[in-house]
């Protein structure tokens, strides 16, 4: 029997291609369906869905959980958004710490851990990002999806040639129609991402939220870094928070005003379209820098990169970096301390609308004990006190 070498070679390549497709497909599938446990903390009284506020999201991947924490004493209401940009993990992890640990003495806290849940199910296309990462805890590891800046194209596609923001009609980058922080205030008949913003806006109105805090991370080559960005309604609160944190919080936190001319961002549109004060927190994340080296889990968690350090030596960065990098615990700790400071100052000035939270670690504690110290063993809690993201 004569063997046709050419056919064999073709078949070999075909099989190799199929195997690669299978492996990549499995990776995508596993990432999209990875369950992230949330152990409900002592003050979580209810877990709602975004579709409770806008039924247009029901049945979609972005029908996110809304964790409601309530204190004994009535007071104000504060919303904290994690996962607006899921490739900025410190924000999500900070909301996780709050959900699993916070004890509310006064007021209500609303937490969304995956504001753009679709964006948590994909990493940057062609970016070779790790699909997930694990946080060490005293009882083992907790694994989280890495995510992307934009909604997954599987959930919202195609992108338009030009993205015209609603309602300002400002022209924005085409892919930002999938960017949850470019689609505020959203609309009921819009894209999935716009509908998600619309649902959160409805929630803010219905729940009479006083302050909405959107948690982010930024590349060191971006000038808006290590700051609170504040809508004019929150400038005094942000200014005092900045000074208190920089004075005694253990790290420097600047302040920027939300520009009027840049539309679609939470710090602008939530403040403009609701009664809430809107604030956005930025922590440094070297993994987002364009000049980074290998983009792996180590970089994500340790924040160390020699190429970013080199960029700093050439004066190209807006934040300092050295051989210690920007570890995840430092970034998470910054968010925790800033949130607590905002709540304390708010409560001091508005005692009747106060939100008093205890049992949440501050910057120094998160660094000393590690983020994992505040994630509880989900294998040992009753199903009634367990949710998944």
């Amino acid at each position, binding site marked *: 029997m004569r063997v046709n070498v050419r056919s064999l070679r073709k078949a070999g390549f075909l099989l190799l291609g199929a195997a690669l497709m299978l492996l990549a497909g499995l990776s995508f599938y596993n990432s999209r369906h990875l369950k992230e446990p949330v152990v409900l903390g002592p003050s979580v009284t209810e877990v709602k869905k975004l579709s409770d506020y806008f039924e247009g999201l029901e049945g979609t991947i972005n029908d996110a959980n809304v964790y409601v924490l309530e204190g004994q004493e009535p007071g104000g209401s504060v919303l904290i958004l994690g996962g607006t940009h899921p490739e900025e993990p410190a924000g999500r992890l900070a909301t996780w710490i709050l959900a699993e640990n916070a004890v509310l003495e006064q007021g209500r806290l609303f937490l969304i851990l995956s504001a753009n849940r679709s964006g948590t199910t994909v990493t940057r296309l062609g970016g070779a990002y790790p699909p997930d990462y694990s946080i060490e805890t005293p009882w083992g590891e907790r694994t989280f999806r890495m995510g992307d800046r934009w909604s997954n194209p599987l959930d919202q596609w195609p992108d338009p040639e030009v993205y015209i923001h609603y309602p300002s009609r400002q022209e924005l980058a085409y892919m930002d129609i999938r960017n949850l922080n470019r689609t505020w205030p959203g609309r009921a008949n819009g894209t999935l991402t716009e509908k998600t913003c619309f649902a959160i806006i409805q929630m803010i109105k219905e729940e009479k939220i006083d302050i909405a805090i959107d948690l982010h991370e930024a590349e060191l080559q971006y000038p808006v870094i290590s700051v609170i960005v504040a809508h004019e309604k929150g400038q*005094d609160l942000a200014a*005092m928070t900045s000074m208190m944190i*920089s004075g*005694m919080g253990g790290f420097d936190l600047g302040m920027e005003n939300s520009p009027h001319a840049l539309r679609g961002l939470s710090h602008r549109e939530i403040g403009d379209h609701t009664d809430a004060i809107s604030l956005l927190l930025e922590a440094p994340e070297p993994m987002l820098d364009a000049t980074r080296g290998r983009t792996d889990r180590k970089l994500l968690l340790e924040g160390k990169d020699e190429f970013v350090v080199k960029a700093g030596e050439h004066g190209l960065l807006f934040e300092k970096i050295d051989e210690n990098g920007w570890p995840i615990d430092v970034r998470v700790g910054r968010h925790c301390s800033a949130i607590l400071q905002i709540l304390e100052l708010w409560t*001091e000035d508005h005692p009747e609308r106060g939100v008093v939270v205890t049992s949440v670690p501050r910057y120094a504690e998160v660094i000393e004990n590690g983020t994992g110290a505040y994630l509880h063993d989900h294998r040992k809690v009753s199903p009634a006190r367990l949710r998944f993201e």
Partner: protein
Amino acid sequence: MKKNFLSISIALVFLVSGGGLVLAAAQGDTPQAQLPVLITACGQSPDSSLLKAIFMRAKLEHPTPAYELILEAAPEDLTAASDAGRPFKSIMIIMGASLKGMGAAGIAIEDELERTEKLVEAARSQGISIIGVHIGGMKRRAQGADPGDNTDERSIDAVAPNSDFLIINQDGDSDGRFTTIANEKNIAILTVAKNLDLLEVVKQIYGQKYPQ
């Protein structure tokens, strides 16, 4: 207890920062100014919000509002205040620029420099004290800006040499820029380690005690 949180915190900051507030020895006593004060900025810096927050917390006693923030203050604002029977006695001008702030407001640094020059001129003619304030640290200096962006330095050049005295976060004077100007022009300079120390500075300048 919660009510006292800020006061206790501020006291701690003073202790931690070793008193925080430093008066340049060569200039003698703490410079004084009078209320009400107009807060403005040359370069649309959001640091003006920090200063406003300081005045809010300081709760300085004065028959009329002790302070007013007008980001784009012009000589007409001085006239209007005077006509209203509450003339400004001092002006604090925040130095350092925000490209984002100016861009959002559709303002160029040249506009800001021109406005500041006119404001300083009007203030001088009316006997109003001019206090140059830089509290953004090196992030509001050319070293902390995009390569080639010298708007921060132009803002400093427009304000610092024309001030009666300066209030500076010491981080922004790491290269001695403000100290050099102060020495050359014989201007008093108050330096703070942390912006929270500004509460004490404001108290000293306006001769009042921070409310307990």
